[in-house]
């Protein structure tokens, strides 16, 4: 946000597998590009300061805070959003576990958690509870007390319902 002064910059991204070319101000952040320019509103804006994790997306598969990422600095990279990790029909195992374990209440933080935890399970299929807690520590949730979120991630890792 707070943009409009500098020269516009071409940005070319692969977003959820689709190559997208845009021209945007140099200070355009990735979060705004996704939400405003591409209408990918599953990624949420909670603080604009990198403190809440609601805007977590992947850049080349790695979770980053899109509110702290300048769009032009990730030009040429692969961006994955919540829309990109959601199967064409139904839910991923982790998403299903979030629903079934009550790991989502108001839901505003949930896409960020799903992005963080999906990456965790991809890289560490069998995390310990402290590893799960450490991985999600950059995502704030005010509803659940994290208990059911940790449960949902652990259940997914263990392949149980």
């Amino acid at each position, binding site marked *: 946000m707070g*943009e409009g002064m500098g020269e516009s910059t071409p940005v070319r991204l692969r977003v959820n597998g689709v190559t997208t070319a845009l021209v945007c101000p140099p200070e355009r952040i990735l979060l705004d590009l996704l939400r405003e320019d591409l209408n990918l509103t599953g990624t949420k*804006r*909670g603080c604009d300061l990198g403190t809440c994790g609601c805007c977590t997306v992947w850049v080349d598969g790695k979770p980053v805070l899109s509110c702290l990422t300048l769009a032009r600095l990730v030009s040429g990279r692969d961006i994955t959003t919540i829309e990109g990790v959601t199967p064409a029909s139904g839910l991923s195992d982790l998403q299903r576990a979030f629903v079934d374990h009550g790991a989502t*209440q*108001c839901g505003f933080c949930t896409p960020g958690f799903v992005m963080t935890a999906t990456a965790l399970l991809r890289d560490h299929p069998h995390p310990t509870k402290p590893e799960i807690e450490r991985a999600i520590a950059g995502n704030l949730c005010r509803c659940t007390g994290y*208990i059911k979120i940790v449960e949902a991630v652990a259940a997914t890792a263990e392949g149980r319902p």
Partner: protein
Amino acid sequence: MAAPDAPAPTYRLIGTRIPYIEGPLKVTGRAEYTDDIKRSGQLIARLLRSPWPHARLRSINVEKARAMPGVAAVLTGEKYPTPFGVLPITHDETAIAVGKVRYIGDILAAVAASDEATADRALEAIEVDIEPLPDYPEPQGGTIAVAEPIHARGLNGTNIQKEVVQHFGDVDAAFAKAHATVRVRGTFAGVTHAFTEPMATIAEATPDGRLTVWSATQVPHYLHRALSEVLGIPMHRIRVIKPEVGGGFGGKSDPLPHEIICAALSLETGRPVKILFDREDVFVTNHGRHPTKNDVRIAVDADGRILAYDIEALIDGGAWSSFGTVTTYYNGVLSMGPYRVPNFRYHGRRVYTTKPPSGAMRAHGGTNIRYSVELALDDLAERLGIDPFDLRERNALPPHSTTVNQFRITSTSFVKCLHAARERSGWDQKYRKLPYGKGVGLGCGFYISGSNSPIHFTPKMPQCTVHLKADMDGGIAVHCMQADIGQGSNTLLAAIVAEVVGVDLDRVHIMRVDSDVSPVDIGSYSSRVTFMMGNAARQAAESLRDQLIRAASRLTGYPPAQLEVAHEKIRVRHRPDIAVDYLAALHAAMERTGALLATGAYNSPPMGGDFKGARAGTAPAYSFAAYVAQVDVDVETGVYRVEKVWAAFDCGRVLNRLAVEGQIEGSIHMGLGQMMGEAMSYRGARLMNPSLLDYKIPMPQQMPEVECLLVGDDDPEGPFGGKEAGEGPLIATLPAVGNALHDAVGVRYHDLPVTPDKVLRGIEVREQSGRAWKGVG
């Protein structure tokens, strides 16, 4: 009410673990929140906020801003000066400051522009000329007449917004004959909701003379009223829509100035206008838990039976009244239950200060006073040599009783809570028996299950109405203005309808809150939704079920009294092989009338005394809690960890076990935050930590294991016997930890939050006084 020894009925859905019906939308990012909505041609609004805590406005020059390209409108206070506020008796806010500003963050002007950057530049071009006024960042100074009261309505030239004096029985006589007395003085920093979704509103005035407002609100109906009052547009020409809301906890329950400003800007420009808060906006809008000082004296007899409470509270209100009149009463009347208190005196004052307004936050009015009371009771128990559990059990309010201030108590399973927490926590093997640095503590509480008083209605109208429509597709559309803000009320509403009508959950569609079609429910506050909406929904569903049963009666030839619903069918009770499918019954019922309609409503029964303020705290039911916390304190650093909480809670019958657990776990998280570290930190009147980096909520690693012990008996008036579980579960958390700290290190900490430096300081003071960590004192 069922006979006590009759087996409680069981249900197909109610009481099971019901995942949230909108869960699949939330986990995929498909749930639509206000900021996800984009209206064609929408403008972006930004607010100019006061950098002064208290100042008279001499002039505001907006001409330069107005002339900037891309700026569609600039609004200042005089255009819509009608005061408003959540309580009809304390309308002391205006949408934009008129005449003066009252805190750092108060709104001076608003701009609507083509984009945010343009709006921000326009804000910078606004020139404000002010005369500084004395600021009053602390309530103490405002209790006497001041040079420049923050509001003209302050009591007798002071900054006192509300003063409550109550006396029931004879407190002085009770103290005179007491075997033991205790006095606790507590200090509580303000805390805030810290929901993840910042406030957002979109307003769209259209050429047909109507205004549509989408807003992240937990009380759409009060917003509807405030918009109408301030903008001067009849309610029927305003349409309020509540998209998904990313948490509220009380912080989205007042009608807020930005919601009115957004609508006003749309009226000014004829275009849709969106306003989205940044996190600093959220912090200065606040309406969180009040910074409070309280002074609690309790007298008991030799057996530890409570003879009297004598309580004072000084409550820092910030710049507006908000719910403050209620807060002032609650700090007194919510101190008593779950105990019988035969004599009670209370003096509460809520004082305006030049700080961001405080308001309603989860377990509003019941949290701070409860902490002091529970620590005082533990102190008395220790001095009398009575186990803390025994002392509380001796004082438990009996079911179906009346309190000294004429609260009607119906169901209470408080004693069962005590027994469950004591047994499951291994209390008798742990209390006063763990090594230095480790401890267990008991904290108890109770909370209203819905305020008995709808704050707006005269004459009295239902607090909740539910409409159902069943059409030939077999789906049941449910309309109700209840506000799901993540607590699961949509799911409960759907489950109740499905349970009563006997259909699968996926037949029930909870329609988005839309004032054009949703019958009024007064929203998500005072922990009222389960009880009130639940009863209204049950009544509506029974009406629909009865229409189906009458149709099935025609089809089967059996009288309606012999028919009952089963899963997706209606059958003869004594001949279950004779049945009519749900769809067949529905279609038969529709033959003459088309789609079936049904309605249900809830109105709480008359209750309470006839003295001034008698209705504050009256509720159709109350929840009860007894929590044990176990802590581990590093006595070298003062850092402590809450290892486990045994949360025994009486919410009556558990209606959705998954949701109740979620409410308890989330409440414990929020309670631990206030206990261990959260604080709105001020330097004078300036908030120093308006970000989630500096205002830290507990991390996953700080969460204890939580064992939910749901032991409530059915409530006689609650839906299926249920009561609230949204706010009451927070209250007991704090004193359970506070009393556990005493068990661990022998110090009672009365100043919240209890940060590690305070833990160490307390230990030092105790050691300097020569007191051992265990033993009376």
